[in-house]
């Protein structure tokens, strides 16, 4: 039989197989954010498809040990304290024992790491590859190439992705960015966009009157999210359009600048600052507005505009990164990240408003984006990963060697030491001594709901 026929047969057999996935990331509940939500929703949908999902992350304060979330999602909060921006202290080999224990006791078949900025993810993927497990990586953000931080970050990414089976990016722009940063062959990278929970983001029951146009901004007020642009844009828009009001939700270092702008231009009654908005209240803030303004300077995907569109708001956004790929052209107005262009775009959006029907927009978003679709596509990626052939260590080391003149040798050394450490761990704690966890029958969990009894409330 030919090679491609054999691969197809393997994929077909894998399709019928139930996967046991270990999701690894430094970013998970109880923190809220894009990566955290993605992990949670994807895990829930995979559980509904019949796969087993276990999440591994670091401890949050006193929250350590094993927790069970909705649907029987098992989360290991490993007691490694975060040291910088929610990341675990990178010890390279320190997490090997616990990762190995979890992989063996849960009988994992594929390891899925999330976010290039997560040290735990990189370490876990490295250890999983040394032990021969199949590995998938998802990149959620865009990174630069020029500054020192980005150069080192990209080298680490190159190391991890040298030996990964498959990679997933959330937009075509993100795929291009990842491929250029890591040198990964594009055939190995899949594009699966994020989605939105349409049940949570519904438009307002009664349509808002258009006497006063309300523009909503919800984002972290930091440089990356274009808070400086807002400082220029808001006074100009208020001057040109007397019936426009702004609602700004979110907090950050740039909040001071926005408050100053408000004072200087006497816009206290036209610009409302809400401060940090918890995720559960985002919808209630969104439905107070007609237009959603996003001024990010860089975005791989931008779930915020998806949530806004789901609530029936017309979006005005900067044309950066993966933003143009998210929404259809008739419900988004794009502008260059320059104040004049953005003011013109807002004017255009105000003129477009009468043609917008929030409920129609919501139904359209519901049909275009769903987490179940994301889970099904991810399942296909797992099948592809499992059908990859097993390679021996020398072939894999040759790929690491090609990473650079000095970096290549360093990476090979790191992987060789990891391989030796693995055999040492096998002697110290043989895998037959590690007990496998019996599976909880998922039917018994569903029968015994209400949620407050069996599952962990966040």
């Amino acid at each position, binding site marked *: 039989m030919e090679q491609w026929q054999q691969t197809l047969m393997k994929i077909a057999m894998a399709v019928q197989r139930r996967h046991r996935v270990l999701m690894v990331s430094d970013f998970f509940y109880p923190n809220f954010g894009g990566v955290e939500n993605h992990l949670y929703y994807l895990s829930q949908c995979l559980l509904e498809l019949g796969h087993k999902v276990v999440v591994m992350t670091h401890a949050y304060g006193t929250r350590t*040990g094993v927790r069970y979330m909705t649907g029987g999602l098992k989360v290991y909060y490993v*007691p490694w304290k975060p040291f910088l921006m929610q990341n675990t202290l990178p010890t390279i080999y320190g997490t090997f024992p616990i990762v190995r224990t979890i992989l063996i006791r849960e009988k994992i078949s594929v390891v899925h790491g999330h976010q290039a900025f997560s040290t735990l993810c990189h370490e876990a993927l490295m250890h999983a590859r040394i032990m021969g497990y199949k590995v998938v990586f998802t990149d959620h953000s865009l990174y630069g190439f020029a500054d020192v931080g980005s150069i080192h970050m990209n080298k680490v990414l190159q190391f991890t992705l040298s030996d990964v089976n498959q990679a997933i990016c959330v937009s075509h722009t993100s795929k291009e960015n990842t491929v250029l940063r890591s040198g990964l062959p594009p055939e190995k990278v899949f594009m699966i966009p994020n989605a939105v929970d349409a049940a949570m983001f519904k438009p307002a029951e009664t349509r808002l009157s258009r006497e006063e146009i309300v523009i909503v901004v919800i984002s972290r007020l930091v440089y990356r999210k274009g808070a400086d642009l807002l400082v220029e844009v808001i006074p100009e828009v208020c001057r040109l359009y007397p019936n426009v009001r702004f609602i700004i939700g979110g907090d950050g270092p740039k909040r001071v600048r926005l408050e100053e702008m408000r004072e200087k231009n006497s816009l206290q009654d036209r610009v409302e600052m809400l401060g940090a908005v918890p995720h559960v209240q985002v919808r209630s803030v969104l439905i107070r507005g007609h237009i959603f303004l996003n001024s990010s300077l860089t975005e791989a995907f931008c779930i915020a505009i998806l949530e806004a569109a789901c609530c029936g708001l017309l979006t005005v956004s900067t044309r950066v990164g993966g933003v143009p790929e998210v929404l259809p052209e008739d419900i988004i107005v794009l502008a260059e990240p320059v104040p004049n262009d953005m003011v013109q775009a807002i004017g255009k959006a105000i003129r477009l408003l009468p043609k917008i029907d929030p409920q129609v927009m919501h139904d359209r978003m519901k049909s275009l984006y769903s987490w179940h679709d994301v889970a099904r596509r991810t399942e296909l990626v797992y099948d592809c990963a499992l059908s990859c052939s097993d390679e021996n260590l020398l072939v894999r080391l040759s790929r690491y060697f090609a990473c650079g003149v000095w970096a290549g040798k360093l990476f090979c050394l790191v992987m060789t030491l990891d391989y030796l450490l693995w055999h040492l761990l096998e002697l110290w704690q043989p895998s037959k001594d590690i007990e496998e966890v019996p599976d909880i029958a998922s039917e018994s969990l569903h029968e015994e709901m209400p949620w407050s009894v069996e599952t962990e409330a966040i």
Partner: protein
Amino acid sequence: MSEKPISSRKYTYIHDEDDTGFQSIDSHHIMVPKSRSRQFLLYSSFLVLMAHVCSLLLGKEEWRIVFPWNSLTFVILAAALHLRSIEKESVLIMPTFGVQLETHYRSGRICRRFIPISKILKPVLNECVTPTTCYWSLVLILRGDKELTLVFQELQPPLEMLVSVWKALCTAVDGDTTTDCGMEVDFRASIL
């Protein structure tokens, strides 16, 4: 009467039911066989010390200063190893009365703790996660106590041994002789 003991690489589990006397006592013992490697460690460190002493005597160094410290260290280590060496841990279940947890050391010392049955809310199989490993443990949730009480303080027996003890504890606490959970065990998340 006793059931057939279950053995693993490190531990042996024995279940005894004593029906004589006023009340039946359900005993569960986890025994630790005498470890050859531990004895080997003890004797080899003794040999090292002897060799050190001889070299000091021959080399005519300041053995008057070094020798007492070395021997003191050795004695302290040996004593610690011997005193902490565990022979077995037992759980004695007296239905409607209470549960006694015992730790028997090889030195002859026995640590006992009695918990009245009314104080036990639930026996729970808990997964403990440390920075390097993850293992099963059997704990008791006590009324009015924020901390979990470990049934086996020092030993980490395998899951099948823990399940037998857990079922017996559940029966005693619930007072329900028909409790049969099989392997659909009730995994409760840690409350810490």
